[in-house]
């Protein structure tokens, strides 16, 4: 969710001259506030032995964090400053903030590209108090030397969200959907009868920046994941991919765009607001993730998340795509007091009952022994699949090299394909998907 880089979101940040000539700042369009008495801040930080500065990249978490920072300062006297980068501008903001003398002590390194770019700035978290709080190692990121660069503070899952009520209204049962063929049957039937039913199968697969990540990032994961099963897990050194399962990606993609509320040719500029289409009950299926659970379930109480069924053999045993881009890294250049204060604050966030409850409410689930229990329905779906012996599809998408450029090329190619689904246009999609990976990998590692 946080990976979508939106042209719209650049609005606040881009002073042309600042970008081209000045080189003095990357622009910083975010909210900023500092908890505690700022006048006494420096005195307090020496007295209490440090202060915390978290550069947060999830705008939806900002309000909760500002509140928790205030509480923490009141309880312990340690000043906590939270700055939230505007949506889609985290990297720019990080570049600018890291250049300052009072750089963030806590920031986010969420994927392989981040490890490569910012790994040098991260403290090895092995053996720290916060690492001991973790209940799994699954969401941690290591560099090539085995340094624990960042640790997950929450994880998410994504897949195909289905509206059980609408599916039943159309005379089908959600439990019958067990693979691509059964999904296709239901979807095509609903689309065929959409006039009579009053709703359609899929919401609009909009290709503008607020939505294109659903297919250029998330849906793409099915290709990467199944390819991983053949070739071994992706990591930072995955310099090229084969695209073996691209036909499966195409199957599900075609199913989505051809059985939808909106014609494929109208998807390029988007603006159909797929989330609202889903909450209004205009369509029964929607590609999204666990972060949308609260909004979706409020409007449509019977929602369930299905795996990406795409016609791969053995997919009846598929589960949801689980992973995270929300990983904490502690700045290695911060003073020892500040590092300690930061780690103390992290431990408090994941172990204090009130604080962790508030965090879990926003984040869905936190992989820590003493954190509050999750109430997120989609994450519970993920757990059910796992309990049934299904495989978890990990987020190989996190290894997309130069992610913004890689995805932008894919958007362009898919736009052309949507308006004219010819083989030559699909060849361009393939080029962007497979060759684009190698090209961007080379560019990112030059």
């Amino acid at each position, binding site marked *: 969710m946080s990976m979508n*880089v939106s*042209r*719209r979101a*650049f*609005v606040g940040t*881009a002073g*042309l001259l600042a*970008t*081209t*000539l*000045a*080189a*003095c700042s*990357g622009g910083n369009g975010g909210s900023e506030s500092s908890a505690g008495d700022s006048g006494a801040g420096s005195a307090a930080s020496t007295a209490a032995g440090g202060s915390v500065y978290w550069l947060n990249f999830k705008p939806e978490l900002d309000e909760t964090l500002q509140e928790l920072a205030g509480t923490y300062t009141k309880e312990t006297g340690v000043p906590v400053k939270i700055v939230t980068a505007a949506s889609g501008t985290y*990297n*720019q903001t990080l*570049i600018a903030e*890291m*250049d300052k003398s009072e750089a963030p002590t806590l920031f986010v390194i969420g994927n392989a*590209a981040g490890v*490569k*770019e910012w790994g040098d700035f991260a403290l090895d978290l092995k053996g720290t108090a916060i690492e001991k709080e973790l209940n799994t190692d699954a969401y941690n990121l290591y560099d090539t030397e085995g340094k624990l660069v960042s640790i997950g503070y929450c994880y998410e899952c994504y897949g195909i969200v289905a509206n059980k009520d609408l599916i039943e209204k159309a005379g089908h049962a959600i439990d019958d959907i067990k693979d691509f063929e059964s999904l296709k049957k239901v979807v095509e039937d609903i689309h065929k009868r959409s006039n009579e039913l009053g709703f359609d199968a899929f919401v609009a697969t909009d290709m503008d*920046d607020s939505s294109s990540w659903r297919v250029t990032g998330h849906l793409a994961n099915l290709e990467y994941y199944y390819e991983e099963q053949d070739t071994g897990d992706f990591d930072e050194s995955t310099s090229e991919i084969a695209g073996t399962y691209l036909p499966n990606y195409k199957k599900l993609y075609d199913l989505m765009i051809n059985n939808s509320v909106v*014609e494929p*040719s*109208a998807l*390029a*500029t988007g*603006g159909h607001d797929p989330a609202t289409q889903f909450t209004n009950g205009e369509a029964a299926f929607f590609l999204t993730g666990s972060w949308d659970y609260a909004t979706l379930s409020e409007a449509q109480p019977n929602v369930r998340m299905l795996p990406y069924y795409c016609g791969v053999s053995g997919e009846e045993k598929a589960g949801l795509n689980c992973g995270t881009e929300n990983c904490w890294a502690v700045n290695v250049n911060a003073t020892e007091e500040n590092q300690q204060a930061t780690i103390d604050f992290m431990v408090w966030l994941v172990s204090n009952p009130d604080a962790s409850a508030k965090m879990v409410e926003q984040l869905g689930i936190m992989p820590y022994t003493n954190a509050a229990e999750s109430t997120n329905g989609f994450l519970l779906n993920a757990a059910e699949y796992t309990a049934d012996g299904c495989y978890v599809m990990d987020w190989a998408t996190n290894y997309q*090299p*130069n992610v*913004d*450029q890689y995805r*932008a*090329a894919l*958007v*362009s*190619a898919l*736009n*052309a394909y949507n*308006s004219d689904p010819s083989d030559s246009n699909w060849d*361009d999609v393939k*080029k*962007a998907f*497979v*060759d*684009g*990976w*190698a*090209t*961007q990998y080379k*560019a*990112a*590692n*030059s």
Partner: protein
Amino acid sequence: MAKTASNDSSIKRSTRRWAWLFMGPVISAFCIGFVWPFFQGIYLSFCKFRLTSDATFIGVDNYQAALTDASFQHSFWYTALTAVVSLVLINILAFTVAYVLTQKIKGANLFRTVFFMPNLIGGIVLGYIWSMIFDGILAAYSTSILLETSYGFWGLIILLCWQQIGYMMIIYIAGLQAVPEDMLEAAKIDGASKWQTLFRVIIPNVMPSITICMFLSLTNGFKLFDQNLALTGGLPYIIQADGSTINTTEMLALNIYNTFYTAGAGSRGVAQAKAVVFFLLVAGLGLAQLAYTRRREVQQ
């Protein structure tokens, strides 16, 4: 007489003594906000860096990479074309509107206000509004402004005309109103036709306005960023055989921005080098054009 002279010189002396107080803030702001970052920017274009405070000098490699980058070359030609076409259209239309509105017609003031208003809207907002308008029309033909380079190009030209004609019109109106009445009268008495009056009397007299308008629209065209970002963002791309892309409607400034922020840490120096090339280009063009048009102005 002697008293006045001594008064003058004392004023001069105190002006000289206190000049720094009045000049100081501006000069220091200019140095902090422009001169220093400018020179740092030039230095960084010779460096490989992730953070601007931690740069390693590598010589001219960045310039080599920038100048051989196919997407940069494409964006240069695309920008040049956009700038030239928009310059011609904006100035002809703005002059025409100004000429009509300086004739004694009813409601001229209202029209002036209306024509000027688009200029008050920010580029990003304009970009999104126009993308909706264009797509509203193009949807009827099952296509989109993001699917064809030519749609993106003409879309941007229409947007620029709509936005800038009003502004240039104001400058032209000021110029037209300053044309001496007696000259126009003399032309009339001499039997000059309307066209002769326009080309032989009016245009030579508004040459200063033409200079400033051409200069503004040319540099505006070259520096264009937000409208470009919001309207098409560079789409559609040409996907090359190796998977790399040429963003067909990407202008220079957006190309630099994308290189800096989305092409990975290794290309920040390259983006910086592109920015320096970009500066030289805009400054050179602007100065050359200024010098050329100045020569044609009528000295009054």
